[in-house]
């Protein structure tokens, strides 16, 4: 009788242990993403969010990290600060996330930063423009993997224009009338004379504008031979098309947002250059194949627009892989401060964060343009490394 009781007790304890182990294994690494899935900027941020979702799903299908799945909580902030604030509060106080991600307009940053600092939870800008606080000396809690980088972008762009132009350059600058875009283009305007470039026009175009011809006419009348645009894609491409409609024959350098590859194919203009930090799918790297396979599982977005979010997914995996179980925000923060991600060709080199540099130690640029003979996008300038100090 006594033997039977012990036997039952043993079995019960074993069952409880198994259940506990199973429950432990099911316990996820929980991260919260507040993204502009709709509203202003959604054309950029929704594909980023989608790529992170696909990456995490693929990661979980392979067994997750240290045997634990990654739970990605996605909320649509409609690019509104009040919603981002509500999401950050929910993530931190209700969901108990280890890490928050933001893929939205810069107006949503302050409330999320405030909440991150209050709760001591790291905030990772994935696909949204990197705030100044991630550059050295970095804020302890803020990190960024986004390809575009204010200041560095314009410095590289002006160097490229000077290098590519055969003679003197009369430069027109184009921004969207939002603070981040205007600030960058104004910086480029100040910088241009130091590169021997003459700025002749600076157009800040309101979003959205039904007709870009009046702005283009002003640029053409100013006698610009080159145009440099650092703005959301719609402003860049519509200004360029309006300029061509007016018979302008100059060269145009725009930032390569996530839809740049398809757009080069649509425009088929050899003098429309795009520069950025993500490799085009035309290179057909193994990592591109992985993205295409993940996208084939079902997404509304063109696979060529998923690279930016895929890089964020790679960073997320690398960070969580450096966190032992049970995870805490403090452990995640420590892992973020020493992360080094092999981007496998999606970028020009590894993405590395240090305790003082939460942007990356080296940033890489590439320039593409359309080639009529090859009927495809070709490199106008291969990876160029820029040290971030």
């Amino acid at each position, binding site marked *: 009788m006594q033997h039977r009781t012990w036997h039952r007790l043993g079995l019960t304890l074993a069952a409880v242990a198994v259940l506990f182990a199973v429950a432990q294994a099911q316990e996820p690494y929980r991260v919260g993403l507040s993204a502009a899935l709709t509203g202003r900027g959604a*054309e950029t941020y929704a594909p980023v969010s989608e790529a992170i979702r696909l990456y995490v799903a693929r990661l979980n299908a392979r067994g997750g990290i240290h045997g634990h799945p990654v739970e990605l909580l996605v909320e649509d902030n409609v690019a509104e600060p009040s919603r981002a604030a509500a999401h950050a509060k929910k993530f931190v106080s209700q969901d108990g996330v280890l890490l928050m991600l933001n893929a939205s307009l810069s107006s949503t940053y302050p409330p999320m930063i405030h909440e991150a600092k209050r709760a001591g939870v790291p905030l990772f800008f994935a696909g949204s423009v990197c705030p100044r606080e991630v550059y050295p000396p970095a804020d302890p809690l803020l990190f960024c993997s986004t390809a575009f980088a204010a200041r560095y972008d314009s410095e590289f762009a002006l160097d490229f224009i000077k290098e590519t132009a055969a003679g003197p350059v009369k430069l027109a600058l184009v921004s969207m009338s939002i603070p981040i875009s205007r600030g960058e283009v104004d910086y480029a305007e100040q910088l241009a004379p130091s590169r021997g470039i003459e700025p002749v026009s600076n157009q800040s175009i309101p979003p*959205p504008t039904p007709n870009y*011809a009046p702005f283009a006419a002003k640029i053409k009348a100013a006698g610009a031979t080159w145009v440099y645009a650092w703005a959301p894609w*719609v402003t860049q491409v*519509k200004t360029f098309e309006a300029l061509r*409609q*007016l018979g302008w024959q100059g060269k145009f350098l725009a930032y390569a947002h996530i*839809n740049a590859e398809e757009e080069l194919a649509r425009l088929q203009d050899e003098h429309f250059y795009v520069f950025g930090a993500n490799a085009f799918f035309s290179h057909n790297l193994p990592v591109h194949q992985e993205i295409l396979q993940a996208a084939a599982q079902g997404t509304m*977005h063109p696979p060529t627009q998923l690279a930016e979010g895929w890089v964020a997914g790679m960073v997320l995996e690398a960070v969580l892989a450096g966190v032992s179980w049970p995870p805490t925000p403090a452990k995640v923060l420590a892992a973020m401060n020493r992360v080094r991600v092999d981007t496998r060709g999606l970028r020009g080199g590894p993405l590395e964060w240090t305790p003082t540099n939460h942007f990356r130690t080296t940033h890489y640029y590439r320039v593409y343009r359309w080639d009529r003979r090859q009927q495809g996008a070709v490199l106008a300038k291969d990876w160029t490394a820029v040290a971030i100090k």
Partner: protein
Amino acid sequence: MQLVVNTLVLAATYALIACGYVLVYRVSRVLNLAHGELMMLGGYLLLTTASLFAGRPLLAVAVALLLSLGLGLLVYVVLMRHFTGESVLAAVLVTIALGILLRGLAILLWTAQLQYPLVALGWQNPALSLGGGAVISAAGLLTLAAVAVVYGGLLLFLRYTPWGIRMRAAGENPLLAAQRGVALPQVLALAWGLATLSGGLAGMLLACDSGIDGTAVIVGLKAFPVALVGGLDSLSGALVGALLVAAAEVLAIAYLDPLVSDVVPFFVLLAMLLLRPWGLFGRREAFERV
């Protein structure tokens, strides 16, 4: 010369959109604040029909136009009909809700990406020289032609056809019109249909000229001051208002700061509200009735 062309094309876009605001207001006294979204849907409908009827662009355009007309009728039958005789404010609030719903639906169905119906139609948008160094895009020229056809057609329709006369009567005095046998629901449905058709056409032309995305709604909103400046119950007023606002906007870009252009329509509107609240061609009685 280019300045004139730019002004005319912008004015034509505004006039086409404003026409919808005026039609609905004139007949039902409702400010349709979902008109920007209905205009945007016109562009998206063209995108869809262009893909569905690949290789048959004219059919795609015709079907998109019919769908726009049908959408306007549907909005009235399903939604606005229930607010006939109710407070105008309630109806306006419903149009705001409708706008939010349509914006969400557009993103769900077509994503937030900038898309190009012209590519799907297999058409080009070449620049056409007008002499004197001025050029106009084919889509711009079509927009000008569309304004002539839509406004000319509407003026004839309202003046000479039985349905047009009924529509004017319903706008003038709905109770009396109903007592004289005018079927108000049909007239109102037709007004909503035609308004959405003209807005949809503007959306299609805009999409052909420079692509379509969710921000097209704001273009629709910018045309609202045009309708107010012209006088909300006057089609001719909408034409003049469009010219005035577009000229102010283009001149601001050319001679002031491009940033000013964004607020110029609202400056013109403010000035008009201070000087003549019922608009250039609007009627004081109609304004006071509201």
